[in-house]
């Protein structure tokens, strides 16, 4: 091995299989399984008066129908509140099937099982549910009016109120030379992965075991939840996340009602059962995010330095709050970005509405926080007539001030503490990449032709790699293959490739010999999950540590076999060899064989490990004290703090003067996620994130009417960008390794989406002169605002 695999842009090992159509997604399995259809509420808020099965039972191919009343006691309990918090005093979660009341369109009311989905849908549409509709609470402001309660026993619709403060923000604002206050809004959107949700259960009555395949970002936790609801030992349940067609946060939610119902029904019926969500169901019954309304007050000096910042916001968490306060806590803290804020107060109310529940979507509260902070900095710059990059520079934390502890509590319950970064360095790279200083000339030239050009930028800091832990297992087989596993699951991030690079680097083996399995509780039962840009940080380091243990064990065994001091040995080219004398070596697969003392020579290679061939010290046990058979190791990575990645985006837009259509010209990204394991994969994450940021800025919104009906629940009306809507992106990397983990990695998964709305809003504002304080913005909305602005001047 002469070149390092770490940092190499190797092609992905996942690709050939997926490209040939050989992927194994949940719905690719279980062709003979019964399929389910879920009867879902058409009302945003209603009491269920009666459920009449009508002639559903006569449908050809129908197997069974279940309502709340048919459920065993344990399944009648509400689904878990996954992340409790002391401030979450009025937490409500949904039932697997509605218990007399529905609180959003799409809530599960009855479950139909049939021979196939066609028959299941035939039966589902014959079931007549008699509803008594109630007024719907839609939007965070309506929720706070409290004239109608989503849940009868929570009259104010507030699940939680949380306040954090450092310094004395209100006093600092009062004393400041300049003060501004304004409101900033972000609307609802959602992850919308191309593969919808899916769950497939096989109950083995002979073995009394359950195998569950689920399209989930948290297979170990799904396993534990299913075992608890079904009254099974963990040893009886295995959960596998096979290929997953994208997650982007929505699949971290668990257990979904169907994840409990499908295995329960499979056991009840003694037959495989599968649920494959359709796209319309996904729009209304899989979770959303983003909607928040923020009120900002800021005080600053003549240079634009923020002296005090006070933000009060309302977070719309929808009908239930299964994921606790994670999203608004992230907004509260990550809003700060790369700036040194010494007087900062933030409060939020997390409120119920009669809409689909909210759990993290890529970025998870950060796009909102970034929008608030960056729009605030832009307002300061406009107020003072200063360049927007200068005002940012005046507020940056300096590299020598890191690590920096703000005195706030982050989403993991730990200190909010930036570990590394070089914000001035990032800004100068960004200015160069987008040619910030040359923009005035470009804008003037365009203006001379009657064209409207604008430029904007936005900076963010992203807490990644949150705990509590991940683990890795590395095993060298006697055939030379290296088996790596970790418990979290993959949704397209190239984990099989990146983790193989990490293991191969440590063990000096060919990348092609490393086989990585993720998200299979049979292989690795302890894990937390894939979220918060944590997989490379957490599992990457755990696998690195496990591989290091394997390396050390290989050196011990080879040292004895070669009678060479371990310090004089190295692992390379699939061998343990003497440094400087590579001809004296032992193949790693032979070391693997020798690591397992044998009685039986089941094949030729095994002979060397048998008791008469390798007798060893006759006075010592064949497996030495403290050792175990096999060239393998498990290790865990459990950080004290999250590690903080950061970056900045700049974008140039052109606004059509007649139609207000926004066209993105240049889009530049500077990104610091520490050590890059595979730059191609990281760039892919950035490109994909930027596309979601563009969608969130210009196209995507969940359009609820006042009755809580989602008006655009299809890809025809929810405008996810096609290739024609996404710009070319120029990327520059800055690598300031994290001091917190052995590989120096900071997370990269979510970064691309975070500053999109903020940067694009700034560019539109620059192009049109119209203040942009709410995103997304459509051409017609922008046009109306331009007309308003023109009529008031």
């Amino acid at each position, binding site marked *: 091995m002469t070149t390092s695999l770490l940092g*190499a*842009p*190797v*092609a*992905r*090992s*996942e*690709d*050939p299989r*997926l*490209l*040939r*159509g050989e*992927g*194994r*997604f949940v*719905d*690719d399995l279980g*062709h003979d399984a019964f399929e389910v259809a879920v009867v879902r509420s058409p009302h945003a808020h209603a009491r269920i008066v009666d459920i009449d099965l009508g002639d559903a039972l006569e449908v*050809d191919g129908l197997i069974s129908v279940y309502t709340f009343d048919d459920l065993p006691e344990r399944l009648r309990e509400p689904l878990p509140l996954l992340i409790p918090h002391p401030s979450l005093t009025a937490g409500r979660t949904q039932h697997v099937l509605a218990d007399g009341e529905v609180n959003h369109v799409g809530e599960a009311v009855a479950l139909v099982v049939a021979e*196939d989905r066609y028959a299941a849908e*035939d039966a589902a549409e014959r079931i007549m549910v008699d509803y008594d509709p109630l007024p719907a609470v839609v939007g965070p402001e309506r929720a706070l009016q409290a004239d109608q309660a989503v849940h009868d026993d929570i009259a104010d619709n507030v699940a939680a109120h949380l306040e954090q403060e450092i310094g004395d923000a209100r006093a600092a604002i009062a004393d400041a030379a300049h003060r501004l206050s304004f409101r900033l809004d972000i609307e609802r959107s959602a*992850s*919308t*992965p*191309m*593969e*919808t949700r899916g769950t497939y259960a096989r109950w083995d009555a002979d073995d009394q075991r359950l195998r569950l395949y689920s399209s989930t970002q948290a297979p170990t936790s799904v396993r534990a939840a299913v075992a608890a609801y079904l009254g099974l030992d963990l040893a009886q349940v295995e959960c596998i996340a096979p*290929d*997953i*067609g*994208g997650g*982007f946060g929505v699949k971290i939610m668990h257990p979904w009602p169907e994840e409990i119902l499908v295995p329960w029904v499979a056991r009840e019926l003694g037959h495989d059962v599968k649920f494959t969500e*359709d*796209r319309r169901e996904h729009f209304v019954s899989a979770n959303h995010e983003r909607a928040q309304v923020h009120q900002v007050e800021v005080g600053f000096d003549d240079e634009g330095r923020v002296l005090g910042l006070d933000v009060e916001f309302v977070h719309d968490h929808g009908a239930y709050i299964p994921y606790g306060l994670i999203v608004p806590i992230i907004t509260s803290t990550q809003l700060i970005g790369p700036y040194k804020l010494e007087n900062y107060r933030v409060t939020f109310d997390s409120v119920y509405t009669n809409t689909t529940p909210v759990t993290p979507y890529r970025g998870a509260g950060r796009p909102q926080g970034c929008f608030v902070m960056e729009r605030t900095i832009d307002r300061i710059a406009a107020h003072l007539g200063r360049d927007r990059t200068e005002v940012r520079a005046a507020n940056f934390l300096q590299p020598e001030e890191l690590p920096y502890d703000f005195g706030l509590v982050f989403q993991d319950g730990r200190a909010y503490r930036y570990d590394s970064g070089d914000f001035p360095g990032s800004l100068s790279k960004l200015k160069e990449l987008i040619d910030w200083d040359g923009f005035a000339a470009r804008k003037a030239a365009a203006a001379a032709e009657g064209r409207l050009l604008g430029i904007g930028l936005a900076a963010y800091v992203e807490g990644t790699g949150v705990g509590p832990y991940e683990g890795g297992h590395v095993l060298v087989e006697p055939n030379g293959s290296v088996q790596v596993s970790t418990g979290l699951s993959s*949704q*397209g*991030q*190239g984990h099989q490739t990146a983790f193989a690079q990490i293991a191969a680097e440590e063990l000096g083996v060919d*990348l*092609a010999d490393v086989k990585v399995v993720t998200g299979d509780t049979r292989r690795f039962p302890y894990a937390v999950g894939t979220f918060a840009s944590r997989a490379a940080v957490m599992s990457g380091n755990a696998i690195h540590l496990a591989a290091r243990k394997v390396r050390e064990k290989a050196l011990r065994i080879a040292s004895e076999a070669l009678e060479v001091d371990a310090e004089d040995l190295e692992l390379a080219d699939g061998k343990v060899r003497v440094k400087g004398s590579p001809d004296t070596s032992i193949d790693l697969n032979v070391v693997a064989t020798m690591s397992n003392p044998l009685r039986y020579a089941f094949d030729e290679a095994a002979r060397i490990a048998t008791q008469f061939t390798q007798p060893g010290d006759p006075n010592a046990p064949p497996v030495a004290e403290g050792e175990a058979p096999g060239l393998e190791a498990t290790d865990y990575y459990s950080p004290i703090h999250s590690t903080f990645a950061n970056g900045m985006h700049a974008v140039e837009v052109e606004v059509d003067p007649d139609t207000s259509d926004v066209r993105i010209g240049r889009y530049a990204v500077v990104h610091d996620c520490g050590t890059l394991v595979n730059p*191609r994969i990281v*760039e*892919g994450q950035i*490109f*994909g*994130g*930027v*596309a*979601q940021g563009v969608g969130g800025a210009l196209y995507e919104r969940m359009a609820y009417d006042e009755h809580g009906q989602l008006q655009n629940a*299809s*890809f*025809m009306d929810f405008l*996810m960008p*096609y*290739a*024609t809507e*996404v710009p*070319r*992106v120029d990327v520059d990397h800055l690598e300031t390794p994290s001091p917190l983990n052995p590989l120096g990695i900071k997370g990269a998964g979510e970064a691309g989406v975070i500053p999109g709305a903020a940067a694009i809003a700034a560019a539109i504002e620059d192009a049109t002169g119209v203040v942009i304080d709410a995103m997304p913005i459509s051409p017609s909305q922008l046009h109306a605002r331009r007309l308003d602005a023109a009529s008031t001047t």
Partner: protein
Amino acid sequence: MTTNATATGIDAHDRVEVTVTVNGVPRSSQVQPRRLLSDFLRHDLRLTGTHVGCEHGVCGACTVLLDGAPVRSCLTFAVSVDGHELTTIEGLAAADGGLHPVQQAFRDHHGLQCGFCTPGFVVSACGFLAEHPDPDDEQIREGMAGNLCRCTGYTGILGAVRQAADELRATGDDPRQRTRDGATASGEEVSS
């Protein structure tokens, strides 16, 4: 919605024999007249490489070639293709696993992440390149704008179609044909 009697006298639940040639192989199955081609391919013929992302013809994940032209299999009834030829994602790589030039280009350009939309993009690209063997970059962008991808931001996809267009034009191969054994690397190697 279930209307049983139809003008043809065929009940929606009756089964009808459908015979198609898929990837050069004759296949037949008894299906209900309402069965979607996507379900027929995936669940009756067990060709699960064709994916379903929206079921209303917007996302393109289910794209297959019907007599050489791209169609949405989620908007097509299986009975309507009786007697026709289909090419699915499984019909492009060589029998030895060697990747089709479009597939190889997607790998070379990191044109896929989760891989769910990928078969639709690859098949669409094959149909597009058969129609437009010498596309400019803007035509490629337009040509690929019938498919949704949530992961990649399309950068790698557009680069991949550019590479495949250039390569196929050089060889003169029909983009819709299965790759010959030994024509490309097996696809299992890990290049850097």
